[in-house]
């Protein structure tokens, strides 16, 4: 359950940002991008966030997770392809190994959406 640790890191990072804002705005949504080729399970992350944000300044805040597919680039074929996670990673056309990962390794806090009263 490393998602628990990652959620802790997520909350601390957002807290740092929030405390640096003089208005302490009401956060409505935190947007993450999570690559398919990581050890992170979005469902576990959602669950950990729900539990850990309870009774904090993040209670009820939406955690939006954008999943990014694993895309590799085959240098020999000069083409992108989607490796089949769990089954095969080599290029389906020429069998070259997966070397150049274009996307799928992301684990990022992309942005925070918040409201300020005027």
């Amino acid at each position, binding site marked *: 359950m490393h998602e628990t640790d990652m959620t802790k890191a997520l909350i601390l990072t957002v807290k740092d940002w929030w405390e640096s804002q003089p208005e302490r*705005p009401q956060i409505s949504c935190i947007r993450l991008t999570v690559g398919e080729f990581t050890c992170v399970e979005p469902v576990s992350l959602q669950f950990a966030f729900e539990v850990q944000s309870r009774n904090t300044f993040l209670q009820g805040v939406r955690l939006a997770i954008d999943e990014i597919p694993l895309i590799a680039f085959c240098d020999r074929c000069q083409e992108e392809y989607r490796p089949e996670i769990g089954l095969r*990673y080599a290029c389906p056309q020429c069998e070259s*190994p*997966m070397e150049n990962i274009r996307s799928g390794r992301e*684990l*990022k806090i992309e942005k925070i959406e918040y409201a*300020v*009263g005027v």
Partner: protein
Amino acid sequence: MHQTFEAGLGINLLHANQAGADHNRAHFDEWGITCLNIMSSPGAGKTVLLEKTIAALNDELKIAVIEGDMTTELDAERLRQYGVPVIAINTGRSCHLDSKMVAGGIHQLEGQYEPKEFDLVLVENVGNLVCPAEFEVGEHFKVALLSVTEGEDKPLKYPIMFQEADCLLITKIDLAPYLDIDIDRIAGNVRQMNPHVAIAPVSAKTGEGLDIWFDWVRQVVNRQQRSLALASVSK
């Protein structure tokens, strides 16, 4: 009235761990130490590999162990018999080591010994094929073990650790004749996602293949020490 805003953060979820790992690595570099992060599922043979490695290399390299894979002090005691410092980290119920835990180990090493005397720190991670792969601890190289009893498909199913490994040891090959297993296929499955990994099939029991592993360790320690020496000259 409320107005909605967005603040772009673009911060990696693991940035705190990563910063800690970089800090640990800077300590190792300062002391001229090469650090290997040794990872596998539980029971693949990490501790016995460390025993054999220490026994073989103790005369030529000054070694310390940071031991994370322990439910008791048993593993640490096994390794202490070889006369090397073994720093046991209490990982509690954690499923992986993180850079903060290893920093604690490094500070113990610094407090109790002269760290500059060491050449090699072996970090034995918690037995787990999933989590340790995402948490760097400050290592220079990652070593993954996969025992023949685990099956050929494990690298395909748990790819991250194998994709990031600098060295793969296929362990317990003395058991291969009793199993329906193809060692070349294990190697091929890993090479599909990590074509440059060094692979050594080994048996800690019979000693087969261990020389290849010892040579790999000597080589990376040597390379690391030379590159540090070059860096200090160019400063």
